């Protein structure tokens, strides 16, 4: 059951300010419409995970951890490992987050991250098969939102991608269907590096990387995921508003460009 959310808690004064600035292609924190806030990435901070990364975009802070376990493949892809993404809006991250089982926002978030990774074939799942139909590696990606100041989709996907790039799996042999772990590690086999770029529409302006105040009053959100070949791999419109067809065309063009520098940053120190 999806329900119309309660309206923004941003004050009317602030709302007007943001709207007026947007009409002049300007933003409250002085950024241009196509600027991201400062992005910082810390890798490998959780030693007990196979891989981990913490991504900050401005004051938004997201942690992703990767755990590998042995399990069964899906019946329709018996020769592939399994990728599973889970996101939790931890209540420390925002006064509006509520406890309880994942709501539609965290489910949507997890599924967008999942689609970016899955559709771009980021992880080489074929290489994670041990015994077709019986035993494969399961890649658990768990995303914890630690502080919410807008643009969770980009921050979460970057954190997930950085955590995958940081992931080490034990060397192993397969002996008669049993996995025997050996000394040493290898990186997770990766094929692609999808990078989403998220836009907010405020008034008639389309701006990247909305911060929380901007999200609170945007009419529409649009995320364009771009893979390493400059192809679109995942798109999601969100919010209760509408977009002109040309908004989408503009966003696609900009995302293809913007994703290049972002990808360098994310792969960067890996």
């Amino acid at each position, binding site marked *: 059951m999806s329900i119309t959310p309660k309206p923004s808690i941003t004050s009317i004064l602030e709302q007007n300010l943001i709207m007026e600035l947007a009409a002049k292609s300007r933003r409250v924190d002085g950024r241009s419409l196509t600027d991201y806030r400062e992005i910082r990435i810390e890798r490998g901070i959780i030693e007990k995970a196979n891989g981990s990364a913490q991504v900050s975009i401005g004051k938004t802070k997201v942690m992703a951890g990767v755990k590998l376990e042995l399990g069964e493949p899906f019946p329709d892809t018996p020769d592939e490992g399994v990728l599973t993404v889970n996101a939790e809006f931890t209540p420390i991250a925002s006064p509006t987050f509520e406890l309880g089982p994942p709501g539609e926002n965290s*489910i949507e978030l997890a599924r967008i991250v999942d689609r970016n990774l899955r559709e771009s074939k980021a992880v080489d799942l074929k290489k994670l098969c041990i015994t077709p139909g019986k035993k494969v590696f399961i890649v658990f990606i768990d995303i914890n939102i630690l502080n919410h100041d807008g643009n969770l989709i980009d921050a979460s996907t970057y954190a997930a991608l950085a955590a995958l790039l940081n992931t080490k799996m034990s060397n192993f042999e397969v002996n008669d269907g049993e996995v025997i772990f050996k000394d040493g590690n290898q990186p997770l086999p990766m094929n692609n590096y999808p990078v989403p770029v998220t836009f907010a529409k405020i008034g008639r302006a389309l701006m990247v990387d909305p911060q929380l105040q901007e999200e609170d009053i945007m009419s529409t959100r649009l995320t364009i995921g771009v893979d390493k070949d400059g192809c679109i791999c995942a798109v999601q419109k969100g919010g209760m508003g509408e977009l002109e067809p040309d908004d989408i065309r503009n966003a696609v063009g900009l995302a293809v460009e913007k994703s290049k520098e972002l990808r360098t940053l994310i792969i960067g120190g890996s």
Partner: protein
Amino acid sequence: MIKGYPERLIDENGLRLDGRRPDELRPIKLEIGVLGNADGSAYIEQGKNKILVGVYGPREIHPKHAELPNRAVLRCRYRMAPFSTEERKNPAPSRREIEISKVIREALEPAVMSEYYPRTVIDIFIEALQCDGGTRCAGIVAASLALADAGIPMRDLVSSCSAGKAGGEIILDLFDLEDKYGDADMPVALMVNLNMITLLQMDGKLNPMEFEKAFTMAMEGCRKIRGLQVEALKKRYQGIVEREGTSEFDEEGT
């Protein structure tokens, strides 16, 4: 009981597995006012998709604190019947159903003039009885008609259709096998008269040129479907007028 992987999705004549041309819609059947109790209802068949939509409201909302002072709340549930898919679907709501409920609600929000009914709720229940690809689009098409049937004012009808890529071709209105084994799927919803997009999702792999082609094709599909929606409404409206015309006495004309 899993069906095999199809050898190719487009044959040597450029036709699809079900015989359609790349830009051809599946056969669509629309019916309005099919349920006894709902305030508005509609049924759509699109290929093998069979979807029933019921609308209740505007009505009182429980719990009371969920109401909004300046508009009606929209609630939307998209749900697949356990027998609707190849493998039986567990009756508990899946993450997929929860996400689709959200994007459908968001696709309808811009059209519904919810400001006319503050402190109420409009419930939109979408029951997918058989699923064969593109059910969120078909659900939006039928929900739009069910809202109209319930007498809820809208700025425009919402029309919806997907496009995508399979066998190297950009194609319209993917069915299940094309969705599963194809290269990309992009569901779009359009308020045709306003020329405004209210749903856009995509997964797969499209270069920017392919994206543009598919996006344009999907919007074209929406326009065709809008024609069918209007036709269905006319038929329903006519039906009502005729039936009302035959009533013996109708002083207040309601």
